[in-house]
Protein backbone atom coordinates (compact mmCIF):
# COMPACT_ATOMS: atom_id res chain seq x y z
CA UNK A 1 0.00 0.00 0.00
CA UNK A 2 2.79 2.39 0.97
CA UNK A 3 4.72 2.03 -2.25
CA UNK A 4 1.73 2.39 -4.53
CA UNK A 5 0.45 5.45 -2.69
CA UNK A 6 3.87 7.05 -2.69
CA UNK A 7 4.16 6.36 -6.41
CA UNK A 8 0.81 8.03 -7.01
CA UNK A 9 1.88 11.10 -5.04
CA UNK A 10 5.17 11.40 -6.92
CA UNK A 11 3.41 10.91 -10.24
CA UNK A 12 0.91 13.64 -9.44
CA UNK A 13 3.64 16.02 -8.28
CA UNK A 14 5.52 15.36 -11.49
CA UNK A 15 2.48 16.01 -13.68
CA UNK A 16 1.78 19.31 -11.91
CA UNK A 17 5.17 20.74 -12.89
CA UNK A 18 4.44 21.44 -16.57
CA UNK A 19 1.13 23.07 -15.61
CA UNK A 20 2.85 25.26 -13.04
CA UNK A 21 5.48 26.16 -15.60
CA UNK A 22 2.73 27.05 -18.08
CA UNK A 23 1.10 29.26 -15.47
CA UNK A 24 4.39 31.12 -15.02
CA UNK A 25 4.70 31.59 -18.77
CA UNK A 26 1.15 32.92 -18.95
CA UNK A 27 1.67 35.50 -16.21
CA UNK A 28 4.98 36.48 -17.79
CA UNK A 29 3.20 37.04 -21.11
CA UNK A 30 0.39 38.80 -19.27
CA UNK A 31 2.76 41.47 -17.94
CA UNK A 32 4.00 42.13 -21.43
CA UNK A 33 0.54 41.97 -23.02
CA UNK A 34 -0.97 44.42 -20.56
CA UNK A 35 -1.07 47.96 -21.82
CA UNK A 36 1.84 50.08 -20.61
CA UNK A 37 5.54 49.59 -19.98
CA UNK A 38 6.42 46.51 -17.86
CA UNK A 39 9.10 48.57 -16.13
CA UNK A 40 6.32 50.70 -14.66
CA UNK A 41 5.02 47.66 -12.73
CA UNK A 42 8.20 47.54 -10.73
CA UNK A 43 8.63 51.28 -10.22
CA UNK A 44 8.26 52.42 -6.63
CA UNK A 45 5.91 55.32 -7.37
CA UNK A 46 3.82 56.69 -10.24
CA UNK A 47 6.14 59.66 -10.61
CA UNK A 48 9.34 57.63 -10.82
CA UNK A 49 11.92 59.55 -12.80
CA UNK A 50 13.40 58.35 -16.09
CA UNK A 51 16.57 57.31 -14.23
CA UNK A 52 14.68 54.93 -12.01
CA UNK A 53 12.76 53.49 -14.96
CA UNK A 54 16.03 53.07 -16.84
CA UNK A 55 17.54 51.31 -13.84
CA UNK A 56 14.58 48.94 -13.56
CA UNK A 57 14.79 48.32 -17.28
CA UNK A 58 18.38 47.17 -16.81
CA UNK A 59 17.62 45.23 -13.61
CA UNK A 60 14.88 43.24 -15.37
CA UNK A 61 16.78 42.94 -18.60
CA UNK A 62 13.97 44.51 -20.57
CA UNK A 63 16.54 45.44 -23.19
CA UNK A 64 17.57 41.81 -23.57
CA UNK A 65 16.05 38.74 -25.26
CA UNK A 66 12.67 37.32 -24.19
CA UNK A 67 14.24 34.14 -22.82
CA UNK A 68 16.62 36.14 -20.63
CA UNK A 69 13.72 38.29 -19.51
CA UNK A 70 11.80 35.18 -18.50
CA UNK A 71 14.72 33.84 -16.48
CA UNK A 72 15.06 37.22 -14.74
CA UNK A 73 11.31 37.21 -14.11
CA UNK A 74 11.56 33.80 -12.44
CA UNK A 75 14.53 34.98 -10.38
CA UNK A 76 12.61 38.01 -9.13
CA UNK A 77 9.56 35.88 -8.30
CA UNK A 78 11.80 33.53 -6.38
CA UNK A 79 13.05 36.49 -4.38
CA UNK A 80 9.45 37.47 -3.67
CA UNK A 81 9.50 40.52 -5.93
CA UNK A 82 6.05 40.82 -7.49
CA UNK A 83 6.51 44.51 -8.26
CA UNK A 84 4.98 47.53 -6.59
CA UNK A 85 1.45 48.79 -6.39
CA UNK A 86 0.89 52.30 -7.70
CA UNK A 87 -2.24 52.76 -5.63
CA UNK A 88 -1.07 51.67 -2.18
CA UNK A 89 2.61 52.58 -2.69
CA UNK A 90 3.63 49.27 -1.13
CA UNK A 91 5.24 46.22 -2.61
CA UNK A 92 2.66 43.82 -3.98
CA UNK A 93 4.04 41.11 -1.73
CA UNK A 94 3.39 43.07 1.47
CA UNK A 95 -0.06 44.10 0.22
CA UNK A 96 -0.90 40.45 -0.37
CA UNK A 97 0.54 39.41 2.97
CA UNK A 98 -1.81 41.75 4.84
CA UNK A 99 -4.87 40.81 2.75
CA UNK A 100 -4.49 37.08 2.17
CA UNK A 101 -5.58 36.00 5.68
CA UNK A 102 -8.88 37.86 5.28
CA UNK A 103 -9.54 36.04 2.00
CA UNK A 104 -8.56 32.61 3.28
CA UNK A 105 -10.60 33.03 6.44
CA UNK A 106 -13.68 33.98 4.46
CA UNK A 107 -13.25 31.24 1.86
CA UNK A 108 -12.76 28.63 4.59
CA UNK A 109 -15.94 29.66 6.34
CA UNK A 110 -17.84 29.64 3.02
CA UNK A 111 -16.46 26.20 2.22
CA UNK A 112 -17.43 24.99 5.67
CA UNK A 113 -21.00 26.30 5.22
CA UNK A 114 -21.29 24.64 1.83
CA UNK A 115 -20.06 21.27 3.08
CA UNK A 116 -22.10 21.24 6.27
CA UNK A 117 -25.23 22.01 4.27
CA UNK A 118 -24.83 20.05 1.08
CA UNK A 119 -23.14 16.79 2.08
CA UNK A 120 -25.66 15.64 4.71
CA UNK A 121 -28.49 16.86 2.48
CA UNK A 122 -27.06 14.91 -0.47
CA UNK A 123 -26.68 11.77 1.62
CA UNK A 124 -30.24 12.01 2.93
CA UNK A 125 -31.61 12.72 -0.53
CA UNK A 126 -29.89 9.57 -1.76
CA UNK A 127 -31.17 7.44 1.11
CA UNK A 128 -34.74 8.67 0.80
CA UNK A 129 -34.78 8.77 -2.97
CA UNK A 130 -37.78 10.50 -4.61
CA UNK A 131 -39.13 11.55 -1.24
CA UNK A 132 -40.28 15.13 -0.67
CA UNK A 133 -36.86 15.85 0.80
CA UNK A 134 -35.17 14.64 -2.37
CA UNK A 135 -37.46 16.82 -4.49
CA UNK A 136 -36.74 19.80 -2.25
CA UNK A 137 -33.01 19.23 -2.63
CA UNK A 138 -33.41 19.10 -6.40
CA UNK A 139 -35.29 22.41 -6.48
CA UNK A 140 -32.84 24.09 -4.10
CA UNK A 141 -29.78 22.95 -6.03
CA UNK A 142 -31.28 23.98 -9.38
CA UNK A 143 -32.06 27.47 -8.12
CA UNK A 144 -28.72 27.76 -6.32
CA UNK A 145 -26.88 26.83 -9.51
CA UNK A 146 -28.50 29.73 -11.36
CA UNK A 147 -28.01 32.21 -8.54
CA UNK A 148 -25.30 34.82 -9.01
CA UNK A 149 -23.34 35.10 -5.73
CA UNK A 150 -23.54 38.88 -5.66
CA UNK A 151 -27.32 38.86 -6.10
CA UNK A 152 -27.77 36.31 -3.34
CA UNK A 153 -25.50 38.37 -1.12
CA UNK A 154 -27.67 41.43 -1.66
CA UNK A 155 -30.83 39.45 -0.89
CA UNK A 156 -29.25 38.36 2.39
CA UNK A 157 -28.32 41.97 3.16
CA UNK A 158 -31.89 43.10 2.56
CA UNK A 159 -33.52 40.38 4.63
CA UNK A 160 -31.09 40.01 7.53
CA UNK A 161 -29.66 43.51 7.79
CA UNK A 162 -32.43 45.83 6.64
CA UNK A 163 -35.63 43.86 7.41
CA UNK A 164 -34.75 41.75 10.42
CA UNK A 165 -31.77 43.76 11.67
CA UNK A 166 -30.02 40.66 13.00
CA UNK A 167 -26.93 40.79 10.78
CA UNK A 168 -24.04 43.15 11.36
CA UNK A 169 -23.41 45.98 8.92
CA UNK A 170 -22.42 44.46 5.55
CA UNK A 171 -19.25 46.54 5.11
CA UNK A 172 -15.70 45.51 5.90
CA UNK A 173 -14.22 43.11 8.40
CA UNK A 174 -14.80 44.97 11.67
CA UNK A 175 -17.70 47.09 12.97
CA UNK A 176 -17.02 50.74 12.14
CA UNK A 177 -16.72 51.93 15.75
CA UNK A 178 -14.21 49.24 16.65
CA UNK A 179 -10.47 49.79 16.44
CA UNK A 180 -9.24 46.55 14.85
CA UNK A 181 -6.80 44.65 17.07
CA UNK A 182 -3.16 44.56 16.00
CA UNK A 183 -2.75 41.58 13.68
CA UNK A 184 -0.76 38.64 15.01
CA UNK A 185 -1.48 36.06 12.32
CA UNK A 186 -3.80 38.32 10.32
CA UNK A 187 -6.70 35.91 10.77
CA UNK A 188 -9.32 37.83 12.73
CA UNK A 189 -10.74 34.72 14.36
CA UNK A 190 -7.38 33.22 15.37
CA UNK A 191 -6.02 36.56 16.60
CA UNK A 192 -8.98 37.28 18.84
CA UNK A 193 -8.88 33.73 20.20
CA UNK A 194 -5.18 34.10 20.94
CA UNK A 195 -5.75 37.28 22.91
CA UNK A 196 -8.80 35.70 24.50
CA UNK A 197 -11.07 38.57 23.50
CA UNK A 198 -14.42 36.81 23.12
CA UNK A 199 -16.36 39.95 22.34
CA UNK A 200 -14.12 40.77 19.37
CA UNK A 201 -14.18 37.13 18.28
CA UNK A 202 -17.95 37.21 18.19
CA UNK A 203 -17.89 40.43 16.14
CA UNK A 204 -15.37 39.01 13.65
CA UNK A 205 -17.45 35.88 13.13
CA UNK A 206 -20.67 37.89 12.84
CA UNK A 207 -19.09 40.00 10.09
CA UNK A 208 -18.12 36.88 8.18
CA UNK A 209 -21.46 35.10 8.21
CA UNK A 210 -23.22 36.98 5.40
CA UNK A 211 -20.34 37.16 2.90
CA UNK A 212 -19.47 33.52 3.60
CA UNK A 213 -23.07 32.40 3.17
CA UNK A 214 -23.34 34.23 -0.16
CA UNK A 215 -20.11 32.68 -1.33
CA UNK A 216 -21.32 29.24 -0.31
CA UNK A 217 -24.45 29.42 -2.44
CA UNK A 218 -22.83 28.45 -5.75
CA UNK A 219 -20.94 25.59 -4.11
CA UNK A 220 -24.10 23.96 -2.81
CA UNK A 221 -25.47 22.78 -6.16
CA UNK A 222 -22.43 20.86 -7.46
CA UNK A 223 -21.63 19.35 -4.05
CA UNK A 224 -25.19 18.32 -3.30
CA UNK A 225 -25.74 16.77 -6.74
CA UNK A 226 -22.46 14.90 -6.71
CA UNK A 227 -22.99 13.64 -3.15
CA UNK A 228 -26.49 12.41 -3.99
CA UNK A 229 -25.43 10.82 -7.28
CA UNK A 230 -22.40 8.98 -5.95
CA UNK A 231 -24.27 7.91 -2.81
CA UNK A 232 -27.00 6.40 -4.97
CA UNK A 233 -24.37 4.54 -7.00
CA UNK A 234 -22.81 3.26 -3.79
CA UNK A 235 -26.14 2.20 -2.26
CA UNK A 236 -27.04 0.31 -5.43
CA UNK A 237 -23.72 -1.51 -5.56
CA UNK A 238 -23.08 -5.18 -4.95
CA UNK A 239 -20.93 -4.63 -1.89
CA UNK A 240 -23.72 -2.75 -0.13
CA UNK A 241 -26.11 -5.51 -1.11
CA UNK A 242 -23.65 -8.03 0.30
CA UNK A 243 -23.25 -6.05 3.53
CA UNK A 244 -27.01 -5.95 3.90
CA UNK A 245 -27.28 -9.63 3.22
CA UNK A 246 -24.87 -10.24 6.08
CA UNK A 247 -27.41 -8.57 8.29
CA UNK A 248 -25.42 -5.46 9.15
CA UNK A 249 -27.45 -2.58 10.48
CA UNK A 250 -28.62 0.07 8.04
CA UNK A 251 -26.63 2.84 9.71
CA UNK A 252 -23.49 0.72 9.67
CA UNK A 253 -23.91 -0.18 6.00
CA UNK A 254 -24.34 3.48 5.10
CA UNK A 255 -21.57 4.95 7.22
CA UNK A 256 -19.02 2.16 7.00
CA UNK A 257 -19.46 0.88 3.45
CA UNK A 258 -21.46 3.21 1.22
CA UNK A 259 -20.18 6.60 2.39
CA UNK A 260 -16.39 6.08 2.05
CA UNK A 261 -16.88 4.85 -1.49
CA UNK A 262 -19.25 7.68 -2.33
CA UNK A 263 -16.78 10.30 -1.09
CA UNK A 264 -14.30 9.89 -3.95
CA UNK A 265 -16.14 11.79 -6.69
CA UNK A 266 -17.25 14.32 -4.06
CA UNK A 267 -13.60 15.04 -3.25
CA UNK A 268 -12.95 15.80 -6.90
CA UNK A 269 -15.92 18.15 -6.93
CA UNK A 270 -14.57 19.89 -3.84
CA UNK A 271 -11.43 20.75 -5.78
CA UNK A 272 -13.52 22.30 -8.53
CA UNK A 273 -15.63 24.18 -6.00
CA UNK A 274 -12.58 25.60 -4.22
CA UNK A 275 -11.28 26.85 -7.53
CA UNK A 276 -14.53 28.56 -8.40
CA UNK A 277 -14.53 30.03 -4.93
CA UNK A 278 -11.37 31.91 -5.80
CA UNK A 279 -13.36 33.57 -8.56
CA UNK A 280 -16.48 34.16 -6.50
CA UNK A 281 -14.46 35.80 -3.75
CA UNK A 282 -13.71 38.68 -6.12
CA UNK A 283 -17.40 39.57 -6.39
CA UNK A 284 -18.17 38.95 -2.74
CA UNK A 285 -15.18 40.91 -1.44
CA UNK A 286 -16.14 43.77 -3.73
CA UNK A 287 -19.74 43.65 -2.56
CA UNK A 288 -18.98 43.51 1.15
CA UNK A 289 -15.88 45.77 0.97
CA UNK A 290 -13.95 42.84 2.39
CA UNK A 291 -10.24 43.72 2.65
CA UNK A 292 -9.01 40.58 0.85
CA UNK A 293 -6.92 39.88 -2.22
CA UNK A 294 -9.92 39.63 -4.59
CA UNK A 295 -11.16 43.15 -3.94
CA UNK A 296 -7.56 44.36 -4.00
CA UNK A 297 -6.99 42.83 -7.45
CA UNK A 298 -10.20 44.26 -8.91
CA UNK A 299 -9.61 47.71 -7.52
CA UNK A 300 -6.08 47.65 -8.91
CA UNK A 301 -7.38 46.51 -12.27
CA UNK A 302 -9.90 49.33 -12.44
CA UNK A 303 -7.22 51.83 -11.34
CA UNK A 304 -5.03 50.55 -14.25
CA UNK A 305 -2.47 49.33 -11.70
CA UNK A 306 -1.42 46.01 -13.20
CA UNK A 307 1.35 44.67 -10.97
CA UNK A 308 -1.12 43.45 -8.31
CA UNK A 309 -3.33 41.95 -11.02
CA UNK A 310 -0.63 39.74 -12.47
CA UNK A 311 0.48 38.71 -8.99
CA UNK A 312 -3.11 37.84 -8.14
CA UNK A 313 -3.51 35.73 -11.27
CA UNK A 314 -0.25 33.93 -10.53
CA UNK A 315 -1.06 33.31 -6.87
CA UNK A 316 -4.59 32.12 -7.56
CA UNK A 317 -3.50 29.77 -10.34
CA UNK A 318 -0.69 28.35 -8.18
CA UNK A 319 -3.08 27.90 -5.27
CA UNK A 320 -5.44 26.13 -7.63
CA UNK A 321 -2.76 23.78 -8.94
CA UNK A 322 -1.69 23.04 -5.37
CA UNK A 323 -5.27 22.37 -4.27
CA UNK A 324 -5.92 20.06 -7.20
CA UNK A 325 -2.77 18.21 -6.25
CA UNK A 326 -3.85 17.84 -2.63
CA UNK A 327 -7.30 16.65 -3.67
CA UNK A 328 -5.77 14.14 -6.09
CA UNK A 329 -3.47 12.75 -3.42
CA UNK A 330 -6.26 12.71 -0.88
CA UNK A 331 -8.46 10.81 -3.33
CA UNK A 332 -5.74 8.27 -3.82
CA UNK A 333 -5.28 8.00 -0.06
CA UNK A 334 -8.93 7.33 0.70
CA UNK A 335 -9.53 5.14 -2.34
CA UNK A 336 -10.17 1.65 -0.95
CA UNK A 337 -8.76 0.17 -4.13
CA UNK A 338 -5.27 1.30 -3.13
CA UNK A 339 -5.58 -0.51 0.18
CA UNK A 340 -6.39 -3.72 -1.63
CA UNK A 341 -3.16 -3.58 -3.62
CA UNK A 342 -0.61 -4.49 -1.01
Amino acid at each position, binding site marked *: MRTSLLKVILLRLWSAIPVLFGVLVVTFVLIRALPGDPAIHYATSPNAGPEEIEQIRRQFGLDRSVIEQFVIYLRELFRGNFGNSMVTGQTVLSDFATRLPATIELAMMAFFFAIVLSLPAGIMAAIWRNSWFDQLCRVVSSVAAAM*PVFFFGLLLVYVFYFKLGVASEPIGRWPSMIIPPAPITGFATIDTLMTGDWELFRMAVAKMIMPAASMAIFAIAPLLRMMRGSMIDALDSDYVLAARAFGLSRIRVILRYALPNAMLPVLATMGMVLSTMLGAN*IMIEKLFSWPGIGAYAVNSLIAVDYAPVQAFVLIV*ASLFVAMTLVIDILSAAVDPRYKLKR
Partner: protein
Amino acid sequence: MISIANIRFILRRNFVTGIAAVLIVVLMIVALIGPYVVPHDPLTTNLREVLRPPSSAFWFGTDHLGRDIFSRVIVAARLDFAIAIVAVSLSAAVGVSIGAFCGYVGGRIDRAMSRIVDVMMAFPLFVAAMALVAVFGNSVESIVLATAIINLPFYFRLMRAEINARREAGYVEAAIINGNNTRQVIFQFLIPNSMPPVVVQISLNLGWAILNTAGLAFIGLGVAPPTPEWGIMIQEGAAMMVSGQWWVVVFPGLALVLAVFCFSLLGDGIRDIMDPRRRS
Protein backbone atom coordinates in the same frame (compact mmCIF):
# COMPACT_ATOMS: atom_id res chain seq x y z
CA MET B 1 -36.09 11.56 -38.39
CA ILE B 2 -37.96 13.25 -35.57
CA SER B 3 -41.66 13.60 -36.32
CA ILE B 4 -44.28 15.79 -34.66
CA ALA B 5 -45.55 12.78 -32.71
CA ASN B 6 -42.03 12.06 -31.63
CA ILE B 7 -41.57 15.60 -30.32
CA ARG B 8 -44.90 15.40 -28.50
CA PHE B 9 -43.84 12.18 -26.87
CA ILE B 10 -40.53 13.68 -25.79
CA LEU B 11 -42.22 16.81 -24.48
CA ARG B 12 -44.77 14.86 -22.47
CA ARG B 13 -41.97 12.90 -20.81
CA ASN B 14 -39.89 16.04 -20.28
CA PHE B 15 -42.37 18.63 -19.17
CA VAL B 16 -39.88 20.84 -17.33
CA THR B 17 -37.47 20.86 -20.26
CA GLY B 18 -40.34 21.89 -22.52
CA ILE B 19 -41.22 24.79 -20.26
CA ALA B 20 -37.58 25.87 -20.14
CA ALA B 21 -37.40 25.77 -23.94
CA VAL B 22 -40.60 27.80 -24.28
CA LEU B 23 -39.34 30.35 -21.73
CA ILE B 24 -36.05 30.71 -23.60
CA VAL B 25 -37.95 31.37 -26.83
CA VAL B 26 -40.03 33.99 -24.99
CA LEU B 27 -36.88 35.59 -23.54
CA MET B 28 -35.31 35.66 -27.01
CA ILE B 29 -38.37 37.38 -28.47
CA VAL B 30 -38.29 39.88 -25.60
CA ALA B 31 -34.63 40.52 -26.33
CA LEU B 32 -35.38 41.07 -30.00
CA ILE B 33 -38.45 43.31 -29.84
CA GLY B 34 -37.99 44.64 -26.29
CA PRO B 35 -36.30 47.93 -27.13
CA TYR B 36 -39.24 48.90 -29.42
CA VAL B 37 -42.09 48.17 -27.04
CA VAL B 38 -40.87 49.24 -23.59
CA PRO B 39 -43.06 51.91 -21.94
CA HIS B 40 -40.17 54.27 -21.04
CA ASP B 41 -36.81 55.17 -22.46
CA PRO B 42 -34.24 53.08 -20.53
CA LEU B 43 -31.75 55.95 -20.37
CA THR B 44 -33.94 58.96 -19.64
CA THR B 45 -33.49 60.17 -16.09
CA ASN B 46 -36.38 61.77 -14.24
CA LEU B 47 -35.37 63.40 -10.98
CA ARG B 48 -38.99 63.87 -9.88
CA GLU B 49 -39.58 60.10 -9.90
CA VAL B 50 -36.52 58.87 -8.03
CA LEU B 51 -36.63 55.46 -6.27
CA ARG B 52 -40.39 54.96 -6.67
CA PRO B 53 -41.59 51.51 -5.64
CA PRO B 54 -43.32 49.33 -8.25
CA SER B 55 -46.60 50.87 -9.41
CA SER B 56 -48.92 50.86 -12.42
CA ALA B 57 -46.84 53.60 -14.03
CA PHE B 58 -43.48 51.97 -13.24
CA TRP B 59 -44.05 48.22 -13.06
CA PHE B 60 -40.67 47.45 -11.48
CA GLY B 61 -40.25 50.89 -9.85
CA THR B 62 -37.55 53.43 -10.66
CA ASP B 63 -33.86 53.65 -9.75
CA HIS B 64 -31.81 56.39 -8.08
CA LEU B 65 -31.90 58.47 -11.28
CA GLY B 66 -35.61 58.01 -11.87
CA ARG B 67 -35.13 55.58 -14.76
CA ASP B 68 -37.81 52.97 -15.33
CA ILE B 69 -36.43 49.62 -14.12
CA PHE B 70 -38.90 47.52 -16.14
CA SER B 71 -37.73 49.13 -19.40
CA ARG B 72 -34.11 48.73 -18.39
CA VAL B 73 -34.51 45.05 -17.46
CA ILE B 74 -36.18 44.32 -20.82
CA VAL B 75 -33.68 46.25 -22.91
CA ALA B 76 -30.76 44.67 -21.07
CA ALA B 77 -31.84 41.20 -22.20
CA ARG B 78 -30.64 41.90 -25.74
CA LEU B 79 -27.10 42.85 -24.72
CA ASP B 80 -26.69 40.01 -22.24
CA PHE B 81 -27.99 37.40 -24.67
CA ALA B 82 -25.99 38.82 -27.57
CA ILE B 83 -22.73 38.67 -25.61
CA ALA B 84 -23.46 35.12 -24.43
CA ILE B 85 -24.53 33.81 -27.83
CA VAL B 86 -21.64 35.32 -29.78
CA ALA B 87 -19.08 34.24 -27.19
CA VAL B 88 -20.38 30.68 -26.88
CA SER B 89 -20.72 30.20 -30.65
CA LEU B 90 -17.17 31.39 -31.12
CA SER B 91 -15.94 29.16 -28.33
CA ALA B 92 -17.84 26.10 -29.56
CA ALA B 93 -16.78 26.54 -33.20
CA VAL B 94 -13.09 26.95 -32.42
CA GLY B 95 -13.01 24.45 -29.55
CA VAL B 96 -14.86 21.75 -31.50
CA SER B 97 -12.66 22.17 -34.58
CA ILE B 98 -9.37 22.06 -32.72
CA GLY B 99 -10.56 19.31 -30.39
CA ALA B 100 -11.77 17.18 -33.29
CA PHE B 101 -8.56 17.69 -35.23
CA CYS B 102 -6.37 16.81 -32.24
CA GLY B 103 -8.52 13.84 -31.32
CA TYR B 104 -8.36 12.44 -34.83
CA VAL B 105 -4.79 13.19 -35.82
CA GLY B 106 -3.17 12.79 -32.39
CA GLY B 107 0.59 12.95 -32.17
CA ARG B 108 2.70 15.90 -31.22
CA ILE B 109 0.15 18.63 -32.02
CA ASP B 110 -2.40 16.84 -29.89
CA ARG B 111 -0.02 16.55 -26.94
CA ALA B 112 0.98 20.21 -27.22
CA MET B 113 -2.63 21.39 -27.41
CA SER B 114 -3.64 19.21 -24.47
CA ARG B 115 -0.85 20.72 -22.39
CA ILE B 116 -1.95 24.24 -23.32
CA VAL B 117 -5.51 23.40 -22.36
CA ASP B 118 -4.29 21.96 -19.04
CA VAL B 119 -2.63 25.29 -18.31
CA MET B 120 -5.76 27.20 -19.31
CA MET B 121 -7.77 25.07 -16.91
CA ALA B 122 -5.39 26.00 -14.08
CA PHE B 123 -6.94 29.46 -13.96
CA PRO B 124 -10.29 29.78 -12.23
CA LEU B 125 -12.75 30.89 -14.94
CA PHE B 126 -13.69 34.21 -13.44
CA VAL B 127 -10.09 35.12 -12.67
CA ALA B 128 -9.03 34.23 -16.21
CA ALA B 129 -11.86 36.33 -17.63
CA MET B 130 -10.79 39.24 -15.45
CA ALA B 131 -7.16 39.01 -16.56
CA LEU B 132 -8.13 38.75 -20.24
CA VAL B 133 -10.38 41.79 -19.98
CA ALA B 134 -7.41 43.64 -18.50
CA VAL B 135 -5.30 42.66 -21.51
CA PHE B 136 -7.87 43.35 -24.21
CA GLY B 137 -9.11 46.58 -22.65
CA ASN B 138 -12.28 47.35 -20.78
CA SER B 139 -14.97 46.94 -23.46
CA VAL B 140 -17.86 44.74 -24.54
CA GLU B 141 -15.76 43.13 -27.29
CA SER B 142 -13.23 42.10 -24.65
CA ILE B 143 -15.94 40.43 -22.62
CA VAL B 144 -17.03 38.43 -25.65
CA LEU B 145 -13.48 37.39 -26.46
CA ALA B 146 -12.61 36.61 -22.85
CA THR B 147 -15.77 34.52 -22.38
CA ALA B 148 -15.02 32.66 -25.61
CA ILE B 149 -11.45 31.89 -24.56
CA ILE B 150 -12.18 30.72 -21.04
CA ASN B 151 -14.77 28.25 -22.34
CA LEU B 152 -12.57 26.82 -25.09
CA PRO B 153 -11.06 24.04 -22.94
CA PHE B 154 -14.47 22.48 -22.28
CA TYR B 155 -15.25 22.08 -25.99
CA PHE B 156 -11.73 21.00 -26.78
CA ARG B 157 -11.69 18.23 -24.17
CA LEU B 158 -15.24 17.11 -24.92
CA MET B 159 -14.70 16.86 -28.67
CA ARG B 160 -11.27 15.30 -28.36
CA ALA B 161 -12.65 12.55 -26.13
CA GLU B 162 -15.66 11.97 -28.39
CA ILE B 163 -13.53 11.74 -31.53
CA ASN B 164 -11.00 9.52 -29.83
CA ALA B 165 -13.77 7.07 -29.03
CA ARG B 166 -15.07 7.12 -32.61
CA ARG B 167 -12.02 7.32 -34.85
CA GLU B 168 -11.98 3.56 -35.34
CA ALA B 169 -15.72 3.34 -36.04
CA GLY B 170 -16.94 1.50 -39.13
CA TYR B 171 -18.42 4.55 -40.80
CA VAL B 172 -15.09 6.37 -40.49
CA GLU B 173 -13.31 3.52 -42.23
CA ALA B 174 -16.00 3.50 -44.90
CA ALA B 175 -15.61 7.24 -45.39
CA ILE B 176 -11.84 6.90 -45.78
CA ILE B 177 -12.21 4.05 -48.26
CA ASN B 178 -14.65 6.18 -50.23
CA GLY B 179 -11.84 8.65 -50.77
CA ASN B 180 -12.63 11.38 -48.24
CA ASN B 181 -9.64 13.33 -47.02
CA THR B 182 -8.90 14.00 -43.35
CA ARG B 183 -10.74 17.29 -43.30
CA GLN B 184 -13.86 15.72 -44.83
CA VAL B 185 -13.75 12.76 -42.46
CA ILE B 186 -13.56 15.11 -39.46
CA PHE B 187 -16.11 17.70 -40.52
CA GLN B 188 -18.61 15.59 -42.46
CA PHE B 189 -18.59 12.36 -40.49
CA LEU B 190 -16.99 12.60 -37.09
CA ILE B 191 -18.18 16.00 -35.85
CA PRO B 192 -21.86 15.53 -36.82
CA ASN B 193 -21.86 12.19 -35.00
CA SER B 194 -20.29 13.70 -31.89
CA MET B 195 -22.54 16.73 -31.63
CA PRO B 196 -25.10 15.68 -28.96
CA PRO B 197 -22.86 16.28 -25.90
CA VAL B 198 -21.71 19.53 -27.49
CA VAL B 199 -25.31 20.74 -27.71
CA VAL B 200 -25.74 20.04 -23.99
CA GLN B 201 -22.52 21.90 -23.28
CA ILE B 202 -23.64 24.89 -25.36
CA SER B 203 -26.91 25.20 -23.49
CA LEU B 204 -25.23 25.04 -20.08
CA ASN B 205 -22.52 27.37 -21.29
CA LEU B 206 -24.95 30.06 -22.42
CA GLY B 207 -26.21 30.28 -18.87
CA TRP B 208 -22.68 30.54 -17.46
CA ALA B 209 -21.74 33.14 -20.07
CA ILE B 210 -24.65 35.33 -19.00
CA LEU B 211 -23.64 34.92 -15.34
CA ASN B 212 -20.05 35.71 -16.23
CA THR B 213 -20.95 38.86 -18.16
CA ALA B 214 -23.15 40.10 -15.34
CA GLY B 215 -20.48 39.27 -12.78
CA LEU B 216 -17.80 41.18 -14.68
CA ALA B 217 -20.14 44.14 -15.16
CA PHE B 218 -20.92 43.98 -11.45
CA ILE B 219 -17.26 44.46 -10.50
CA GLY B 220 -16.93 47.26 -13.07
CA LEU B 221 -15.53 45.46 -16.12
CA GLY B 222 -16.87 45.28 -19.65
CA VAL B 223 -20.23 46.91 -20.06
CA ALA B 224 -20.19 50.43 -18.61
CA PRO B 225 -22.99 52.54 -17.17
CA PRO B 226 -25.42 53.97 -18.15
CA THR B 227 -25.94 51.01 -20.52
CA PRO B 228 -28.81 48.89 -19.22
CA GLU B 229 -27.28 45.56 -18.23
CA TRP B 230 -28.38 43.24 -15.43
CA GLY B 231 -25.04 43.11 -13.61
CA ILE B 232 -24.63 46.89 -13.69
CA MET B 233 -28.19 47.44 -12.52
CA ILE B 234 -27.57 45.14 -9.55
CA GLN B 235 -24.33 46.96 -8.79
CA GLU B 236 -26.04 50.35 -8.95
CA GLY B 237 -28.79 49.16 -6.66
CA ALA B 238 -26.46 47.51 -4.13
CA ALA B 239 -26.30 50.59 -1.91
CA MET B 240 -30.11 50.85 -1.88
CA MET B 241 -30.49 47.33 -0.48
CA VAL B 242 -29.21 48.69 2.85
CA SER B 243 -31.83 51.43 2.87
CA GLY B 244 -34.70 49.18 1.79
CA GLN B 245 -35.29 49.98 -1.92
CA TRP B 246 -35.22 46.30 -2.87
CA TRP B 247 -36.77 46.65 -6.33
CA VAL B 248 -33.68 48.26 -7.86
CA VAL B 249 -31.72 45.03 -7.35
CA VAL B 250 -34.38 42.34 -7.20
CA PHE B 251 -35.90 42.70 -10.69
CA PRO B 252 -32.69 42.64 -12.73
CA GLY B 253 -31.48 39.88 -10.40
CA LEU B 254 -34.58 37.78 -11.02
CA ALA B 255 -34.24 38.30 -14.78
CA LEU B 256 -30.66 37.06 -14.53
CA VAL B 257 -31.63 34.03 -12.43
CA LEU B 258 -34.50 33.18 -14.79
CA ALA B 259 -32.32 33.30 -17.89
CA VAL B 260 -29.53 31.22 -16.35
CA PHE B 261 -32.03 28.81 -14.79
CA CYS B 262 -33.77 28.17 -18.13
CA PHE B 263 -30.54 27.49 -19.98
CA SER B 264 -29.30 25.06 -17.34
CA LEU B 265 -32.67 23.27 -17.17
CA LEU B 266 -32.67 22.99 -20.97
CA GLY B 267 -29.11 21.64 -20.96
CA ASP B 268 -29.89 19.04 -18.29
CA GLY B 269 -33.10 18.16 -20.13
CA ILE B 270 -31.38 17.64 -23.47
CA ARG B 271 -28.79 15.45 -21.76
CA ASP B 272 -31.51 13.33 -20.20
CA ILE B 273 -33.36 12.96 -23.49
CA MET B 274 -30.22 11.89 -25.32
CA ASP B 275 -28.70 9.73 -22.63
CA PRO B 276 -31.19 8.05 -20.31
CA ARG B 277 -28.40 6.51 -18.26
CA ARG B 278 -27.19 9.87 -16.98
CA ARG B 279 -30.61 10.95 -15.82
CA SER B 280 -30.27 12.77 -12.52
